[in-house]
């Protein structure tokens, strides 16, 4: 899952970035409203973590602009002000969830997964397709009840495919989910990881749609 974190405190921003990467997220980080607006316009994110008090204004403005332009990306608000009125204001402005500082990294991860899941219309945390099930919270996968060991990148690709079963995801879409801005995209990585996934899950699990991308195969 690719996230945008908007936070002006350098150390907290770095902590969120590194910590959420450890939880299996791909994280991009910006420190101001101007940068956040630009990033949201330029890229697609699975979720946005938004600090309320930013040097050039309120995070709520970013949220309002997103919602006005029809952007339904789930938003998790982070703020030092955790009065009830602030929480209500944030949620009513279109935020999906709210977390007061200081917070626990695992809780941030869990809430992010929850709002993304709800965005996809799923109630269960576990992703399932045929005999494969994926647990994003534990970054674990199993096939017919037997655990399969996956690398972080393999996991990200499989999660993206399983979150939208049957939908074709292009190579660049998958690359976006794999790499943040600062990371160098290696050529052929997606092909390499899909190949590795096929050896672990069976050759027919992921289907290549020529010229379009990849999807989970519906028929056996």
């Amino acid at each position, binding site marked *: 899952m690719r996230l945008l974190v908007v936070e*002006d*405190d*350098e*150390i*907290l921003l*770095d*902590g*969120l970035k*590194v*910590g959420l990467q*450890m939880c299996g997220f791909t994280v991009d980080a910006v*420190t*101001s409203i101007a940068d956040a607006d630009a990033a949201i316009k330029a890229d697609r994110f699975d979720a946005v973590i938004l600090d309320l008090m930013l*040097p*050039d204004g309120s995070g709520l403005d970013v949220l309002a602009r997103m919602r006005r332009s029809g952007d339904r990306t789930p938003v998790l608000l*982070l703020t*030092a*002000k955790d009065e009830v009125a602030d929480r209500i204001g944030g949620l009513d402005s279109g935020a999906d969830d709210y977390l*007061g*500082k*200081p*917070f*626990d*990294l*695992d809780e941030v991860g869990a809430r992010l997964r929850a709002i993304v899941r709800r965005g996809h219309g799923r109630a269960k945390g576990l992703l399932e397709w045929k005999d494969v099930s994926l647990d994003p919270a534990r970054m674990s996968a199993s096939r017919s009840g037997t655990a399969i060991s996956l690398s972080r990148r393999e996991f990200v690709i499989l999660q993206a495919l399983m979150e939208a079963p049957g939908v074709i995801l292009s190579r660049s879409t998958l690359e976006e989910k794999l790499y943040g801005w600062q990371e160098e995209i290696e050529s052929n990585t997606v092909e390499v990881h899909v190949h590795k996934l096929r050896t672990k899950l069976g050759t027919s699990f992921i289907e290549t749609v020529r010229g379009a991308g990849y999807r989970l195969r519906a028929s056996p």
Partner: protein
Amino acid sequence: MNSIRVRLFAILLATTGTVWLFAAVWIYASTQAEVERVLDARLMEAARMVSSLITDHQIDPAAAASAATASVPPAPFEQAGGSYSRQLSCQIWSLQGSLVSRSESAPATSLASHTNGFEETEIDGERWRVYAVVNPSLGVRVLVGDSLEIRERLIGDVIKGLLVPGIAILPVLAALIWLSVGGGLAPLTRIAEGLASRSASELHPVDAGSAPREVRPVIRALNSLFGRVADARDRERSFTAYAAHELKTPLAGLKTQAQIALRTDDPAVQRDALARISTSVDRTSRMVRQLIDLAAVDASQDVPSAESVDIAALVGEIASELETLLTANNVRVAVELPNQTQQQPLIQGNRILVRLVIRNLMENAVQHSPSGGEVRCLIHLRESEAVVDILDQGAGFPVAEENRVTERFFRGSKPQGQGSGLGLSIVQMALDRLGGSLAFERGGRGFAARASFPL
């Protein structure tokens, strides 16, 4: 005497008593004069009456002497004291010196030796006031006298009749004064009870409308104090809330980095996280220190401590305090003093405030200097102020933000480094207290903050 009631009581009782005493003395004096006048007139009249009675030879002198003493009805006096009988004594003497006749109550010896008019004499220890009249045709002298003691007793009785009820009433009067003063002070008691039953947060004004006019100034002063206290409390509360919020962000950063350090297997990531924790602790400590400074400036409002502060020495002190920061940022500090011929830059003011101004400006300058840069401190004197210019080679803040930089927690829209947003608010507040001013300047070589202190 700290009780208004006791005080008023004592004053009222003393003044009432004094007025009473004056009245008694006055009445005594006027009664005495009046009694003397009336009784003297009676003496005179009685003497002339006797003289005229015997002149006509209608009445023999002995009878006349008795008649004179009987001419005053003794009944009312007897009723009063039982000792006002036989007031007048009459003697008729021949001019040769033999007693012709005397009234029953008169002594056998001569009441007086004079021939005419009034005289006071003493016979057998008894004092008399005697009127003498000479009847030349008969060759006799008529003496009519009355006892001075009886006169004095009469006056004494009048005064006693006045004083006794007065003294008897005094305790009643005292009690009435005590109760009246209490009643008069009841509005004060009501206000005091109202105030006493308030909790610490009830700072609404006391209703001055229903209070007596005399108490209203006190109530107005009290209400104005309440207003100021409430303002200060509000300021404090919002500041505390704001400060707590501001501390939550670095805490969130610390916690996140700590969690990373705990769960990562990569020693490089762990080192990184720990280094950031250390940095964050430093920054947060600075922020806490500045919060304390801000509270100190806030509190200094009431302490008009004016001492002589040697700015040059203070700048040197602060520069050495900032040694660690200077080394970390690779910045030098150069202090330029006024010419030796000029007087020493001494200013009058609270040393703590002056120090806060200079220290925060210098810290800012150092933090916004490029590595290898230099911060210059120029101290010079003007007519009525000492000016400290602190120049750095950084860009300063955008001109558009100049009005907002002294706001608490304002960090600028493009924060460089990690300030708390408190430094310049402390500087501005301290300068306000000192009566100084703060200005900024951008030149070709960098950015300058100018603090002016009144001399």
